[in-house]
C-alpha cells in the first residue's frame, strides 16, 4: 500500500512536470490552441482564408464570439462536473473499504 502511494505520487509529479516545463523553457511562446494551428494549415493548403460555412450555435445565439472569460468559465464548469463525479464516487469507495476492514476486524 505504501509502495503504491509512492508510485502514484511520483507519477503525478512527472505528469505535472511534463505539463509545466514547456511554460518555462519556451519563454514568450503564444500557447494558442492546436485546433487553431490546424485551421492555419488549411488556409495554407487552399491558398485563401477559409470561411467556415456554419457558425457555432452559441455564437448565433449571443450574436458574437463567446467572451474569453466566459469561455474559461464554461471550461471550468466542465472540469468541475467531471471532478465532482470522480471525487464523489472515489470518496464513497474509500469510505466503503474502510468500513469493510473495520467490520472484518470486529468480526474476527
Amino acid at each position: 500500500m505504501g509502495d503504491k502511494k509512492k508510485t502514484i505520487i511520483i507519477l503525478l509529479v512527472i505528469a505535472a512536470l511534463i505539463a509545466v516545463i514547456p511554460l518555462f523553457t519556451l519563454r514568450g511562446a503564444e500557447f494558442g490552441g492546436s485546433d487553431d494551428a490546424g485551421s492555419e494549415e488549411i488556409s495554407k493548403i487552399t491558398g485563401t482564408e477559409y470561411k467556415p460555412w456554419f457558425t457555432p450555435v452559441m455564437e448565433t445565439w449571443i450574436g458574437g464570439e463567446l467572451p474569453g472569460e466566459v469561455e474559461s468559465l464554461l471550461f471550468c464548469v466542465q472540469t468541475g462536473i467531471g471532478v465532482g463525479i470522480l471525487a464523489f464516487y472515489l470518496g464513497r469507495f474509500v469510505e466503503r473499504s474502510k468500513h469493510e476492514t473495520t467490520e472484518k476486524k470486529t468480526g474476527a
Partner: protein
Amino acid sequence: MNQREKKIVTIASAFALTFGIAPAANAMHIMEGYLPPMHCILWGAICVPFLIAGYLSIKKTLSENRKSITILAMAGAFIFVVSSLKVPSVTGSCSHMTGTGLGAILFGPSAVGILGIIVLIFQAILLAHGGLTTLGANTFSMAIAGPFVSFGIYKLCQKLKVNKYVGIFLAASVGDLFTYCVTSVELALAYPSQTGGVAASALKFLAVFAPTQLPLAIIEGILTDVIIMCLETYAKTELIGLGILKEEEN
C-alpha cells in the same frame, strides 16, 4: 446481444457502408463549419452503428452488473475533466487530452462512443469548441477510432504478458495519438493538397498535431494508470465484476 439487437446493428452497419464506402476509416476537434456538408453527413453516418453498438454494450454491462454504473460514471467524468484541460506543450501551442483510453479498457471500445459524444456535444454547443456540423467526424476520431486502438493495444499487451500498468499506459497514450492521426486524415480528405493530394496534406496536418500531442499522450497514459491504481485499491468488487481484475488477485 440478442437476436433483435444484432439485427439493428447489422442494419445500421449496412446503412453506414452504403454511405461511407469512399472515405477510408481514418481524424481531434475539427472546428465548426470546416468540413464540407457531404463529409459531415458521411462521418455522422459512419458513427451511427458504433453508437448503437455502444448503447447496447452499456445496457448489457449494466444489466449484468448494476453496480458498475458508478465506474461508468467515473470513466465519463474522466473524459470530461481531461478534455477540458488545455495543456501547454513543447511546440508552444496548447492541446488537450482525450481521456477515452480509461473507458475503453474498462468497458470496451464501443461503450466509450456514447461517453465521448456527450462531451463533444457539450463542447460544441456551449464552448464553440469542435462543432455540431463536425460532430460526426470528431466523434469518429475521438470516441471511436481512438478507443478501439486503445482497447486493441490493451488486449495485445495482456496476451503478450506485458506488465499490466505498462499495457494500460501504452493503450491510453497511443489511443490519444491515434485520435489526432485520424483527425489529420479527416481534414486531409476535405482539403487535399494541390501538389501531393490527400496523403501530402495528411502529413502536413499530422506535422502540426503530433509534436504537440506527444507529451500530452504521455500525461494521459500516466493519469489513466493512476486512476486504475486507485480503483484497484478501493473498488475491487466493481473491477472484478467488469473482468478487469481476477478473483484470486484479491
